């Protein structure tokens, strides 16, 4: 395998005496789509800001394109496209002016940027808003513009911090498609998300983060295989009964998680398990058999759900 594009070893970031990122390690290969999955406060954005060659680390090493981002900030950033979690567009300027000015920060020629703007407006589906002040855009439009802005310099690595938060389902799917196309063109993607479906759709490989540490690493399918069973049976007995029947049910499956409103039973065959439950004369008010997802992996690793 060729040398990774991004290499992170023992990365730690402290804010005063609070440790936001706690000694994490990972590599990202060229052309890969790599995800950081984790709940609020896991340290995803902190990690992303360090990868974007702006925020400094407390300890550990980071190499991006063979360079330490703290020593070669401008040089590294010339290769990056950054989409921060919070849009930081210039509200007083129009959509196209925002793209233009950002392109100028990369020292790109006016001619090149003007051509690029057309392409990016199409990408972000904002052709009709080209001369509208950014203040007047909807939240989802701003998000799309921020993503488009990150592409103005034709980056080798695109860093996306929760790219689809605030987008409607249709816009999300369109964005997934566009990101997929960028990946096909050889752009390396690093993204954070707390949507499991997004991680499953977009990431070749991901790490599950919690409290600043990496809990597991692998492909979405690999993680599910390793940390969960093939199927999950979700049963509800009503909030009081759930606790009463839990010990008995736990005997009947590989593993069980008790959530406030339901019980998750991990098994290779959900329907068969449901039959056995009925045979034991326990009758859940509702039941659902589904495939295991990254949500289950996360629950297994941390004992908590990803989205409360």
């Amino acid at each position, binding site marked *: 395998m060729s040398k990774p594009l991004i290499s992170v070893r023992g990365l730690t970031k402290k804010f005063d005496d609070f440790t936001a990122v706690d000694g994490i390690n990972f590599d990202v290969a060229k052309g890969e789509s790599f995800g950081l999955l984790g709940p609020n406060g896991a340290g995803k954005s902190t990690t992303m800001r360090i990868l974007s060659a*702006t925020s400094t680390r407390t300890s550990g090493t980071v190499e991006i394109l063979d360079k330490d981002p703290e020593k070669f900030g401008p040089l590294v950033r*010339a290769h*990056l496209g950054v989409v921060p979690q919070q849009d*930081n567009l210039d509200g007083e300027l129009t959509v196209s002016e925002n793209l233009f000015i950002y392109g100028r920060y990369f020292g790109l020629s006016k001619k090149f940027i003007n051509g690029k703007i057309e392409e990016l407006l199409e990408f972000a589906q904002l052709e009709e808003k080209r001369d509208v002040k950014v203040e007047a855009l909807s939240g989802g439009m701003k998000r799309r513009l921020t993503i488009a802005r990150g592409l103005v310099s034709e980056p080798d690595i695109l860093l996306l911090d929760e790219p689809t938060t605030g987008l409607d389902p249709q816009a999300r799917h369109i964005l997934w498609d566009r990101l997929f196309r960028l990946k096909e063109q050889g752009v390396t993607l690093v993204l954070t998300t707390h949507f499991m479906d997004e991680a499953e759709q977009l990431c070749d490989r991901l790490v599950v983060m919690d409290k600043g540490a990496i809990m597991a690493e692998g492909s979405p399918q690999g993680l599910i295989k390793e940390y969960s069973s093939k199927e999950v049976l979700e049963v509800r007995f009503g909030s009081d009964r759930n606790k009463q029947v839990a010990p008995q049910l736990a005997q009947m499956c590989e593993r069980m998680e008790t959530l406030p409103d339901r019980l998750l039973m991990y098994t290779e065959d959900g329907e068969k398990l449901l039959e056995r439950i009925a045979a034991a004369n326990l009758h859940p008010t509702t039941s659902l058999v589904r495939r295991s997802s990254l949500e289950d992996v996360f629950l297994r690793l941390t004992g908590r759900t990803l989205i409360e």
Partner: protein
Amino acid sequence: MNTGIDVSRIERFGALYIAAARLKSMSKWKVIIAAVDIGNPLFYLIAVGIGIGVLVEKGSGTSGTSGIKYIAFIAPALLASSAIAAVMDETVFPTIEGFKWRKLFFAQNATPITGRQIALGVYLSALCRAISSVSIYYTLLIAFNVVEFGLSALLIPVAVLGGGAFGAIILYAAAKIEKDDQFFNILGRLVIMPMFLFSGTFFPLSSMPIYLQPIGWVSPLWHATELGREAAFDYGLSALMVGVHITYLSTLVILGITLAMSQFERRLAK
């Protein structure tokens, strides 16, 4: 990476890209800025020229102001104040906004542009605004016959130097504060107002009690005003004092901008 990206060029000219972007934002407010930059001097010239000046000269003639018409006496101070106000508008507000309200600096810093260049760019654009404000003011002074055109044109660089000295320090302060709730109040009422009143603006500093004079000595406004008076009319400043004023103001510029550049860098790297 796009082949048109030349990082060494950005390392040299990045601050100018930022300044250009700031000027573009300012241009969105050009009508308001022009109204302020023309209206403010007009009000002063009318109020002082017709009102206060007449009153002062009725009372004591021009004996208190080295034999100079009152309005001409205070003109260099007004000019320097307007430079200070302009630089303040274009440093404090964009800085707090850039770090906190809209986080524009973080967007700029995600490109090859550095924090140091952002600081310098904001500062340069503020100086541009000061040059424009002061030039308008000076033109009005000539039009109203307050000063004679000639050597008095030096009033422009002198006022800009005064504004720049104050602005460099205030740029650092604005980058330093994280809680901005009371910043504008404190700045306006406890810094700007006393500076305006006690910098020999309306009467010579030497006519104030000695224990109040140090306010003037540290104030960029006083230094710029003294230099301006020397440029505008025969004020009799010694060469030594000219040197002291220029050195003091230049030192503030260098000190302030040095501190501001590293503070920008530090804060963006958090």
